């Protein structure tokens, strides 16, 4: 596709790029006053009568195209925008072919110019819950997202207020629990991948497709919660290139010292080495509903490893036995009292 080209009525309004995209070119587009994201797939391409290749080759390619298109339309049918929890899934509104290429269109999401860790605790909780609720819906349908990572979660301003919600994108690596794509082609990201994903991808002895289930997403959620609270995933030590590699080797993940007791135990269970030992996503949703879940049970023994905010908040830091997960107290203080339920220090 090209800038200004019109595809199925969508006019491409930005120069197509492959930024953050392994298997497509993408751009923003407009149609009927609406703003869209359009993706052009690199593979497969639809053979035409005058295409290169033998007749048999073209037949095989054509059959592959039909499977590809079916996979996409099946996902579109399974995930419907009118589902109760679908509000924060960025679902395809169109899937079509022009010439030899396939395209997928979703509404354009305009990410907020803010990071999750700069939110106050309630803001963080809302963000995490919007993410987890989307996964509850996906997982209930037996679908594994398969590529959960910050790049696939766009943070957007809520309709009102200063809250951010998590919009989940890119279901192109999704699969039915227990039936992932073959190891050579399975999607996913090394930093957020689960141990069973890593073993499957490497073709380790005893690694089975059937162990790739919703629990692989749950592992990623454990890491993502840490990333949203502190800006980075937990540490995984020298000699390991990813949390999954560390967990497989039996090495503990290094949680941020500000992580409170209850939430720490939750994240530990989400990132258990054995996928069967991890809670299901509905349990995560329930845990996030408990009051004060992001508030630690005790003051951390060691000072936080980040520099203090440059402007000390009026009245100093937390003086009580409870600390906020969030150290950006300035943000917490300046937000309205409305935002302070559940997270002010309670003695």
């Amino acid at each position, binding site marked *: 596709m090209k800038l200004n080209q019109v595809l199925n009525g969508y006019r491409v309004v930005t120069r197509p790029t492959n930024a953050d995209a392994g298997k497509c070119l993408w751009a923003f587009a407009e149609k009927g006053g609406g703003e869209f994201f359009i993706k052009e797939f690199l593979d497969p391409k639809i053979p035409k009568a005058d295409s290169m290749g033998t007749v048999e080759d073209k037949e095989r390619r054509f059959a592959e195209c039909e499977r590809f298109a079916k996979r996409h339309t099946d996902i579109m049918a399974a995930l419907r925008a009118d589902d109760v929890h679908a509000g924060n899934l960025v679902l395809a509104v169109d899937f079509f072919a022009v010439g030899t290429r396939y395209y997928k269109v979703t509404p354009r999401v305009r990410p907020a110019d803010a990071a999750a860790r700069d939110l106050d605790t309630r803001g963080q909780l809302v963000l995490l819950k919007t993410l987890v609720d989307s996964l509850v819906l996906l997982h209930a349908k037996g679908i594994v997202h398969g590529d959960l990572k910050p790049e696939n979660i766009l943070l957007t301003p809520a309709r009102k207020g200063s809250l951010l919600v998590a919009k989940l994108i890119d279901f192109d690596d999704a699969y039915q629990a227990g039936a992932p794509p073959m190891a050579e082609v399975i999607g996913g990201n090394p930093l957020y991948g689960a141990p069973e994903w*890593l073993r499957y*991808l490497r073709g380790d002895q005893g690694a089975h497709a059937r162990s790739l289930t919703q629990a692989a997403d749950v592992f990623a959620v454990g890491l993502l919660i840490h990333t949203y609270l502190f800006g980075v995933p937990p540490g995984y030590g020298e000699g390991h290139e990813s949390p999954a590699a560390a967990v*497989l080797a039996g090495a503990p993940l290094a949680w941020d010292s500000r992580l409170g007791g209850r939430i720490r135990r939750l994240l530990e269970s989400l990132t258990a080495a054995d996928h069967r030992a991890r809670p299901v996503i509905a349990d995560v949703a329930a845990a996030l509903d408990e009051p004060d879940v992001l508030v630690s049970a005790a003051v951390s023994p060691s000072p936080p490893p980040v520099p203090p905010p440059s402007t000390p908040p009026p009245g100093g830091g937390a003086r009580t036995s409870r600390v906020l997960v969030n150290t950006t107290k300035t943000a917490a203080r300046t937000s309205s009292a409305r935002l302070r339920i559940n997270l002010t220090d309670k003695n």
Partner: protein
Amino acid sequence: MSQNQNRSGDNNLKYAVDIVLCVDTTASMARMLANVKQSAMSFPNRLAQEMAAKGRGISSLRLKVIGFRDYADCAEDAMVVSPFLRVPDDLDSFEKTVNALHAGGGGDEPESALEALALAIGSDWETGLDRRRHVIVMFTDASAHRLGDPRHTSAATYPQSVPGSLEELYAQWGSGQSHSARMENPAKRLLMFAPESYPWTDIADDWNNTIYFPSVAGEGLEEWEMDQIIATIANSL
């Protein structure tokens, strides 16, 4: 939990990246070539950075350079092919190879780009490690000669391995379904910075896993910022 069962004895994902740069070195490329050379030098660093940012260390990075002109014009200097050069170990050789490219000759359009592409496809790609990316990048400002023209293939320097037609070359590129392909389907990418002329538009339409950035024929690739080109290559890893 069973653990440490992979070949290398640790749990890290081993990622191999092979990149073949096919560079048109005919006279019309003079200005562009200076840019391509400059960015080729910054390549190794940029790629390593990009991969680290994605949480993927590259366990093996190899670069190969193919400079091409025109068998019809001067068969003697129509093709320069380096072996795969390992980064960082062979960085010196890589820089020497890139530096030695100079623009000149080639006569008129078309050029022998398809021969270069064929040699690139026939490279000894890495087949081990856990995940592989095999990228061919084509930089040219011209159309290409058709393969199999006896006026070219009869040259003593003409590479015997080059197939006799674009059809056959396509079979070597293959699709997700082909049995005869030389390229590993999920690993392969072809990035073309080339004009909208034969065979680039056909290849872009028909071959999977290609990314085509058309330029205006005869005007070179100036409209593509080198930085964008490097980013595009890095994104494709």
